[in-house]
C-alpha cells in the first residue's frame, strides 16, 4: 500500500467498444455463435418481412376506421358522444395536472424524450381516421395534458397542499364521469346495456382496481390478526376464492345471483361483473400484501409498541407503509392481470373491448378480419398495461429515493 498515492486510486476507464468490436464480441465471438446469429437474424428478418408485407398489402384495415366508435364506446348513442368527450377532457386535464404536481421538483418538465412523445402523439392524433372534429378533440386532449402539467408544476411549487386537492379532484371526478356516462340528473339516461368497448373495459378495470386494493389490504391484515374469527374468515375467503376460476365467479354472478335475489331486485350486469372481478382480485392482492407484511422485521412492531403506539397506529404508520412499498411490483402485476381479465366479461355477454370486437367480426361485412381486429385491440391492451408497468417502476424509484 505504500506505493499507492490517493491520486492514482481513480477507477479504470471503462473501455467503449466501437460498433464493429461490439458486434464481434457479442454476436460473432466464435464459429458456433456466428452461425447461430446468422440463422436467428435470417429467421427474424423472414418473419418481419412477412409481417410487413401482410400489414401493408394483404391486411384490409378498413374494418378499424369504420368501427372506431364501436371499439371505443360500444353501442353508446352517437348523439350523446359529447358527454364522453367531456369525461375525456376531465381525465386528461387531471392526468396532466397530477403529472405536473408529481414532477414539480424535477429540473425540466418537458425534456427531449417527453417532447418527442408529445410530438408523436400529436401526429398520431392528427392521423387517426375519424371526422375532423374528433381529431380536434383528440388534439385538445393532448393540449390539456400539456397545459395541466405546466399549471400543476407552477402551482405545485407555490402550494404544497395541491397534491391533496388533486387527489380529491380525482375522487370527485370518478363520480362526475360515471354521471356523465350513465346520465340521470338533467342528463338523458344511457342504460348500462349500451356501454361498451374500451370505455367499458376501462370502467370495469378502474373500479375493480380501486375497490379491490383496500379489500385486499384488509384481508391481508385480517389473515395476520390475533383475533381468531377475523383470521379464520380471511383465510377461508382467500383460499376459497383462489380455488375458483374467475370465469366461474363471473358466471355465478351473471347466472346464479339472480336466482337467489328476490324477483324484483335487479342488480346491474356490469355491477355484478365488477363485484366478481373485485372479489376475485382482492384474494390475490391479499396474498401479495401478506408477502410484504411478512418481510417487515418484528423489531419494527416492537419499536412502535415500545413508543406507545397502539396496534392500529403501528400497522398504519409503521408496518403497512413499508409492506406496501415492498409489494408494489406484485400489486401492479395483479392490477395488470386484472385489466387483462376484463376480457372474460366478453364470455358472460358484456361488450367490452374484446366483446365488441367479436360482435364486429360477426358482422358479414367484416367476416374474416380476425387478424386485423385482434392485432388492433392487442396493441390497445398492451399500451395500457405497459403504461401501468412504467408507472409502477416510477413509483418505486420515487419511494426509494434517498432511503438506501
Amino acid at each position: 500500500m505504500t506505493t499507492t498515492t490517493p491520486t492514482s486510486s481513480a477507477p479504470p476507464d471503462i473501455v467503449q467498444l466501437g460498433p464493429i468490436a461490439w458486434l464481434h464480441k457479442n454476436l460473432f465471438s466464435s464459429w458456433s455463435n456466428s452461425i447461430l446469429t446468422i440463422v436467428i437474424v435470417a429467421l427474424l428478418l423472414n418473419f418481419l418481412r412477412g409481417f410487413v408485407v401482410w400489414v401493408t398489402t394483404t391486411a384490409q384495415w378498413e374494418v378499424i376506421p369504420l368501427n372506431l366508435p364501436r371499439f371505443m364506446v360500444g353501442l353508446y348513442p352517437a348523439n350523446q358522444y359529447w358527454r364522453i368527450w367531456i369525461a375525456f377532457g376531465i381525465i386528461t386535464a387531471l392526468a396532466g395536472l397530477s403529472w405536473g404536481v408529481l414532477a414539480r421538483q424535477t429540473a425540466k418538465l418537458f425534456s427531449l424524450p417527453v417532447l418527442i412523445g408529445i410530438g408523436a402523439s400529436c401526429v398520431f392524433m392528427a392521423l387517426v381516421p375519424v371526422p375532423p372534429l374528433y381529431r380536434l378533440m383528440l388534439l385538445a386532449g393532448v393540449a390539456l395534458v400539456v397545459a395541466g402539467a405546466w399549471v400543476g408544476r407552477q402551482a405545485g411549487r407555490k402550494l404544497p397542499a395541491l397534491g391533496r386537492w388533486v387527489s380529491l379532484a380525482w375522487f370527485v371526478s370518478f363520480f362526475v364521469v360515471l354521471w356523465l356516462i350513465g346520465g340521470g340528473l338533467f342528463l338523458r339516461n344511457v342504460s348500462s346495456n349500451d356501454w361498451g368497448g374500451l370505455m367499458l373495459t376501462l370502467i370495469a378495470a378502474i373500479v375493480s382496481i380501486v375497490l379491490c386494493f383496500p379489500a385486499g389490504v384488509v384481508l391481508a391484515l385480517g389473515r395476520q390478526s390475533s383475533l381468531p374469527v377475523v383470521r379464520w374468515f380471511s383465510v377461508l375467503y382467500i383460499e376459497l376464492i383462489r380455488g375458483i376460476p374467475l370465469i366461474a365467479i363471473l358466471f355465478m354472478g351473471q347466472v346464479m345471483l339472480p336466482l337467489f335475489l328476490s324477483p324484483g331486485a335487479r342488480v346491474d350486469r356490469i355491477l355484478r361483473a365488477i363485484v366478481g372481478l373485485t372479489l376475485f382480485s382482492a384474494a390475490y392482492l391479499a396474498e401479495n400484501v401478506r408477502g410484504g407484511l411478512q418481510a417487515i422485521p418484528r423489531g419494527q412492531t416492537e419499536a412502535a409498541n415500545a413508543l406507545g403506539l397502539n396496534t392500529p397506529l403501528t400497522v398504519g404508520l409503521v408496518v403497512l407503509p413499508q409492506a406496501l412499498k415492498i409489494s408494489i411490483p406484485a400489486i401492479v402485476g395483479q392490477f395488470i392481470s386484472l385489466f387483462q381479465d376484463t376480457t372474460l366479461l366478453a364470455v358472460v355477454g358484456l361488450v367490452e373491448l374484446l366483446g365488441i370486437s367479436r360482435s364486429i367480426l360477426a358482422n358479414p361485412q367484416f367476416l374474416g378480419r380476425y387478424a386485423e381486429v385482434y392485432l388492433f385491440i392487442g396493441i390497445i391492451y398492451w399500451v395500457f398495461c405497459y403504461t401501468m408497468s412504467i408507472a409502477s417502476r416510477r413509483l418505486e424509484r420515487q419511494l426509494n429515493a434517498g432511503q438506501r
Partner: protein
Amino acid sequence: MTQYQTETSPAEPMASEPMIIARDVEKWYDNNFHVLRGVSLTVNKGEVLVVMGPSGSGKSTFIRTFNALETYQKGSIEVDGIKLSHDLKNIETIRREVGMVFQQFNLFPHLTVLKNVTLAPIWVRRWPKAKAEEVAMQLLERVGILEQAQKFPGQLSGGQQQRVAIARALAMQPKIMLFDEPTSALDPEMVREVLDVMRSLASSGMTMVVVTHEVGFAREVADRVVLMADGLLVEEATPEEFFNNPREERTKKFLSQIL
C-alpha cells in the same frame, strides 16, 4: 432491598422511591423452556442499573417484560406505581412512561430522522407538529445529529442510528429508559459515541436499566450491577464490589470470561 442502595451516587435525593418493582417473575417460552425462574428486582428513581450475564441467561427477556414486549406467567411487575396487567390500555399507559433502545436500533426506515423522532409524540401524546419538531430538534442536538435530521436512517452510520433511537425514545419524555444491548451491534469505533450519550443521560438523573457487556460503562456509570444466569438473579452489588470483590462463584466465572 435497602442494602443495595449505594452511597456512591450523590444525585439521588429520592433514592428510596421505586420506579420498577419486579416480584418473582417467571416465564416459560412456548416450547416450555423456563427462561425466567423467579426474578425479583427493584429499580429506584434516578438509578442506573446495569444487567450483565452470559447470553441466554434471560436478561433481555427480563427487561422486555417491564414494557410488556414479553409476557410472563407468574409474579408481578409494577412500573411507576402502576401494576402491569393484560389490559391494553394499562400496557399503553406504561409504555408511554418507558423508553426503550434496541440492539438493532429498529428505526423506521421509511421515515426521515426527524419524523422517526416526532412520530410518537404527535400520534400518542397528541402534540401539535410544531411542538413535536421543536422538542425533536433539541433532542437531536443533544445526541449530536442535528444536521442529519432530514436524512433517512439508511444513510446514517450505526452509531448515528443508535443515537437517533435514543432521541426517539426520549421524545416521549419517559420516566424510565431501558437499553437492550445498545452497543452490541455497533462497529467498535462507534461504541463510544453511543456510550457518551448514555453517560450524559445518566448524569441528568434519568432512571436507566441497561443490559450491556461494556464493563467500562458499568464501572463508571452504574449505581448497581446485577448478574443474571440461567433465568435467575445471581448477584446484586455496587460496581466496585461486583468487579473487584464478587461474592458468588457464578459471578467470578463470568467475570473471568469477559475481563
